[in-house]
């Protein structure tokens, strides 16, 4: 019993919080001003608790397992959610249904936890849906906005479609191997054409969740339509969680097909980076811009995925951590500005530095981090991804990857340029930044600056493999 608690402690604590919120909601309504700090404290506690009482083991007849690496991944996601609750506080405070929002978000998070820990295709499927459906509902949270509803609609339909494909693939796998248990599957796969077909169906569903080209098309629309809190959740937490399980699947389960999926990953990594970058080049809306940039980032994650070794896993986990800081800082700044002024276009950011130096520096830091420029952590994150990926000595691949760094730098610089250099007669007026947002942005900024320098973080993650 004791083991049950310690193995599932992340999920249990989260469930506890969900129930707490439910009770609060059922009971007399609590004002947002009091509820939000409470939630933030709870999330912080949740995050901190993640570092205690860790154990490795299996549960539910090998349907669920956990290792210290998985706990680490969950912690990183917890941190991300906590940061979202901080940096998007302004928007959250105003929303009508704060408790529901967090209910949905935490349910999705719970789904992700199970997904990461799943050792069975059934539980994987269940948790995947649990991690998706609430997010679609969240995407529609700007109830008055048509774009919000449109984005949510696109998301739920597309993801249902991809679920269909995924399930079709799973059914074929089941048909050919007779097992849905992941550890068993690893031994049962024999690369028959039907299995490869099934694998590609399966893979496509992952690609959809990760926004890999050409399965990425929903991403930008949903990101743009959704409230920024949801966009940031989608872009960092969802991506991170799926990336984690994706690697587990490829490295553990589909190891017999490694030669196939290596090619697949290389081709798609290049396509994703190139297309993501090209689309990001010409975006005006900051959310849409970040959406495409996050697509390009996924391309880089795939580079490490192609390595097929523990270095790749470590690098991805590390990158997701860095990415959470960087992207949330960018989204945080965008959230503040959108919330206070309603401006979402990059052109509106012109001359921002004159009026809002703090926001400008945070934005600059985050964008440089996303572009992979030192001294930000993004440099280390990206470099390690590429280092891991170059273990196969596939130089052309690495050169293409490296060249994509240039394109991505170009569009990140576009924003920097707008913020710092361009003149604007009507810049964003100075905005007051509330305490939680400031705290969140500062944490992100600090994370961007020091995560890279503190090399033991990476080494620690590496020891968890």
């Amino acid at each position, binding site marked *: 019993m004791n083991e049950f608690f310690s193995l599932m402690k992340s999920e249990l604590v989260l469930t506890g919080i969900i129930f707490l919120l439910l009770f609060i909601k059922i009971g007399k309504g609590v004002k947002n001003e009091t509820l939000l700090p409470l939630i933030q404290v709870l999330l912080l506690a949740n995050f901190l608790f993640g570092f205690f009482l860790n154990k490795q083991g299996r549960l539910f007849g090998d349907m669920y397992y956990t290792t210290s690496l998985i706990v680490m991944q969950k912690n990183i996601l917890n941190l991300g959610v906590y940061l979202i609750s901080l940096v998007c506080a302004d928007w959250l405070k105003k929303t009508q249904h704060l408790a529901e929002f967090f209910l949905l978000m935490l349910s999705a998070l719970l789904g992700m936890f199970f997904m990461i820990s799943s050792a069975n*295709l*059934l539980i994987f*499927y*269940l948790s995947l*849906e649990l991690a998706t*459906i*609430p997010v*679609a*509902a969240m995407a*529609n949270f700007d*109830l*008055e*906005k*048509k*774009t919000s*509803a*449109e*984005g*949510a*609609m*696109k998301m*739920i*339909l597309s993801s*249902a*479609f991809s*679920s*269909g494909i995924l*399930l*079709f693939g*799973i*059914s*074929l796998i*089941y*048909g050919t191997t*007779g*097992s*849905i248990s992941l550890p068993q599957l690893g031994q049962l796969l024999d690369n028959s054409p039907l299995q490869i077909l099934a694998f590609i169906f399966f893979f496509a569903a992952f690609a959809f969740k990760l926004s890999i080209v050409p399965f990425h098309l929903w991403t*930008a*629309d949903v990101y*743009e*339509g959704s409230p920024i809190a949801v966009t940031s959740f989608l872009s960092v937490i969802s991506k991170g969680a799926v990336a984690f399980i994706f690697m587990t699947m490829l490295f553990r389960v589909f190891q017999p097909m490694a030669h196939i999926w290596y090619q697949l990953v290389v081709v798609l990594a290049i396509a994703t980076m190139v297309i993501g970058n090209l689309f990001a080049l010409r975006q005006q809306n900051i959310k849409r811009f970040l959406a495409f940039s996050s697509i390009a980032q996924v391309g880089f994650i795939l580079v490490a995925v192609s390595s097929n070794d523990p270095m790749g896993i470590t690098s991805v986990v590390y990158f997701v951590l860095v990415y959470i800081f960087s992207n949330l800082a960018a989204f945080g700044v965008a959230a503040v500005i959108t919330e206070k002024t309603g401006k979402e276009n990059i052109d509106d950011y012109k001359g921002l530095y004159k009026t809002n130096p703090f926001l400008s520096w945070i934005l600059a830091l985050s964008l440089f981090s996303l572009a992979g420029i030192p001294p930000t952590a993004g440099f280390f994150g990206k470099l390690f991804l590429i280092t891991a990926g170059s273990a196969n000595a596939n130089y052309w691949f690495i050169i293409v990857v490296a060249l994509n760094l240039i394109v991505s730098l170009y569009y990140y610089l576009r924003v920097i340029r707008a913020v710092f250099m361009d003149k604007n007669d009507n810049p964003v007026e100075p905005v007051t930044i509330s305490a939680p947002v400031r705290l969140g942005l500062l944490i992100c900024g600090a994370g961007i600056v020091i995560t890279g320098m503190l090399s033991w973080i990476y080494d620690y993650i590496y020891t968890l493999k």
Partner: protein
Amino acid sequence: MMEPGLYHILTVSIALFFIGVMGFLTRRNLITMLMSLELILNSVNLNFIAFNKYVWPGKMDGLFFTIFIIAIAAAEAAVAIAIIINLYRSNQSIDVTNAEDLKY
């Protein structure tokens, strides 16, 4: 009368799958599209059951899977319909072609 074999059922399920896909790709009405999605899921259900019965008769995994798929599909549909309703509120239409503002 011939007992229907695995391939018969698979044929049906694949047909169902593609009918679903076709419906999803061509219908304008969001609800119909949702229904098409259900067809896809049902084809998968058929698959699972068929595999379970004909290929792996000793196992129960396929059956369980099917049950969960049905449950999840219901949940999914619920959320989807809620979203569609909300879309209808602001859009006065459930035609998918009227929800194309987000692009490029």
